């Protein structure tokens, strides 16, 4: 029987297998940030264990950083302490840190790909569930808890049970205005938030093959929202072209050798998956969520479904929505374009293409937060910043921002926010906030209209990038 992409990468990293138990898996790259690493550093220090491979770790500050006035001292004392502790821990252990203000700073899942740290065939971990993002490169990448961060610090390995395999196929032609975010929201709405638990997912089909790396990252990013530890897309020419020439990517002959290996990674034709689903691209439309988990999504033109389930009712009560109602024309006062799901240059290109020549609605507070310093520079260089500013939008500085609202970027209680982030959990964007997940196009259209609109009506006349 043939092997899957996942099998090939996994098997190449197994150090040992314990009888009737887990396997020891070698980790090629360990990404860390300020929130989930301090307790792991403490643990090692208390036990007198050195960091095994500091050169395989890269650190950034992103979750708890301000997105305005980054040149000034961080105001919140606890946040400041957490950031300082990261700097101290990295300095003490010779770990490269792209901290606040560094030209390479940004959201961990945005900077690692753009610096060429993320490469096909690798195993990568980070104390953050959206580490699945890096699977876009044909990488086994997944989120871990802080105890596991400490394990990787101590040994560069993890003890793991090999997950089951799942493949989601999407073939056909996507409608105009249907973005990678809509594809993944559609998949999660169809399959539910725990359909992927216990599995590692591969996304296959011409829809993913034709996607840019940015789009593939958006898709893989949200694998965890259907419960899958990670998602992967087979590396191909699009992947190799993206990686080539990046700072930390292999160069010259070394690169060619790597590409030859990467070409051997795609799933064999006769490989069998434990679970498989297929969807028709033509069925997908711009999506939005109406509830308090990412599986509660509908096409923007559809009405909220009806159900008597108590968890469903609790969710609608929190959102202050009614069963069976449409969300079109709902007034919206907050729009967030950012997060590790949708804060790459392509996302801002789409948003800028829509807002060009239009004006932000007066009632809307729009937060546009680039994923990294590099994305911020690109936005300026490509003239997108001017487009946003002329339309009444202001750009903020890079970070996780209102995706999890650890910093001051909090949506006020009771307010709706159309957000390009990944989670619409209760209070996710601030206590009492109500999140509606959507693509950067739907978010931009909401910011201009001041309410949710039926974007499908104007899609044909849109000039998108």
């Amino acid at each position, binding site marked *: 029987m043939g092997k899957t992409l996942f099998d090939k990468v996994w098997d190449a990293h197994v150090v040992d297998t314990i009888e009737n138990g887990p396997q020891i898996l070698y980790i090629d790259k360990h990404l860390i940030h300020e929130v989930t690493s301090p307790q792991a550093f403490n643990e090692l220090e208390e036990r007198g264990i050195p960091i095994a491979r500091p050169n395989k770790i890269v650190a950034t500050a992103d979750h708890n950083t301000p997105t305005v006035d980054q040149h000034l001292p961080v105001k919140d004392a606890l946040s400041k302490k957490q950031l300082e502790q990261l700097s101290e821990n990295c300095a003490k252990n010779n770990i490269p840190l792209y901290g606040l203000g560094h030209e390479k700073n940004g959201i961990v899942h945005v900077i690692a790909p753009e610096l060429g740290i993320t490469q096909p065939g690798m195993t990568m971990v980070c104390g953050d569930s959206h580490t699945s993002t890096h699977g876009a490169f044909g990488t086994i990448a997944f989120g871990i808890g802080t105890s596991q961060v400490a394990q990787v610090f101590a040994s560069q390995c*993890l003890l793991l049970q090999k997950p089951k395999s799942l493949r989601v196929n999407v073939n056909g032609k996507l409608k105009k205005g249907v973005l990678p975010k809509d594809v993944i929201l559609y998949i999660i709405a169809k399959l539910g938030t725990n359909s992927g638990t216990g599995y590692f997912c591969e996304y296959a089909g011409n829809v993913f093959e034709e996607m840019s790396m940015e789009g593939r990252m958006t898709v893989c990013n949200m694998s965890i929202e259907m419960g899958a530890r990670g998602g992967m897309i087979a590396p191909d020419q699009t992947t190799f072209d993206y990686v080539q020439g990046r700072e930390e990517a292999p160069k010259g002959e070394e690169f060619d050798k790597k590409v030859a290996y990467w070409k051997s990674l795609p799933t064999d034709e006769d490989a069998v998956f434990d679970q498989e689903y297929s969807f028709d691209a033509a069925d997908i439309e711009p999506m939005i969520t109406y509830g308090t988990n990412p599986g509660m999504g509908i096409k923007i033109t559809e009405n909220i479904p009806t159900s008597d389930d108590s968890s469903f009712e609790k969710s609608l009560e929190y959102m202050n929505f009614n069963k069976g109602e449409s969300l079109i024309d709902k007034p919206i006062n907050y729009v967030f374009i950012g997060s590790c799901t949708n804060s790459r240059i392509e996302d801002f290109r789409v948003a800028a293409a829509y807002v060009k020549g239009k004006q932000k609605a007066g009632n809307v507070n729009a937060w546009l937060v680039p994923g990294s310093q590099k994305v911020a520079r690109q936005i300026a260089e490509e003239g997108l910043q001017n487009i946003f500013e002329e339309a009444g939008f202001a750009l903020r500085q890079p970070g996780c921002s209102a995706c999890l609202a650890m910093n001051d970027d909090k949506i006020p209680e009771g307010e709706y926010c159309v957000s390009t982030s990944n989670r619409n959990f209760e209070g996710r964007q601030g206590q009492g906030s109500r999140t509606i997940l959507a693509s950067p196009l739907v978010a931009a259209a909401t910011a201009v209209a001041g309410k949710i609109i039926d974007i499908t009506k104007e899609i044909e006349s849109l000039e998108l990038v």
Partner: protein
Amino acid sequence: MEKFTKLTSRAIPLPTENIDTDQIIPARFLKATDKLGFGDNVFRDWRFHKDGNINQDFALNNPTYSGSILVAGDNFGCGSSREHAAWALVGYGLKVIVSSFFADIFKGNALNNGLLPVQVSEKFLKKLLAHLEENPTSEVTINLEEQTIETEVGTNSFKINTYKKTCMMNGYDDIDFLISNKDKINAFEATL
């Protein structure tokens, strides 16, 4: 890590499904650099109203219920990988979570902190939740050695990986084990 072998306790029913780690410990409490004090803020926004007053309707605040076993709805612990969720539940005094389904990362984090996730069938969970709501003083026994959950509505067995079971019963963690394999890891690295 504390050892776990057997526990008999009353149990707190919390039938809500898809309880995510943002509910277990909201992000604004993740600024600490140690593992202490998270128990004070477990389920913060469900336990307390915005004005700081206690929400008497919430299961953990309801004086009818007590115990160190939480019986929760399907897909417990989904969302963020924050281990702070496990620290918060343990800090509050819980030792076992019973549900019909656990999210992967949470399950691993719980096991790494001596908090036992006990997965039962959906049918059994529904029966148990209903029984606990009617009979809050009834006790539940978790026997890790036998891998059983004994209740007044019947006994169910649960699965746990043999390696993890040994760790839980002896209070071992993965770091010691991984470090003891250093030679194998170095040999593997040499082949890369």
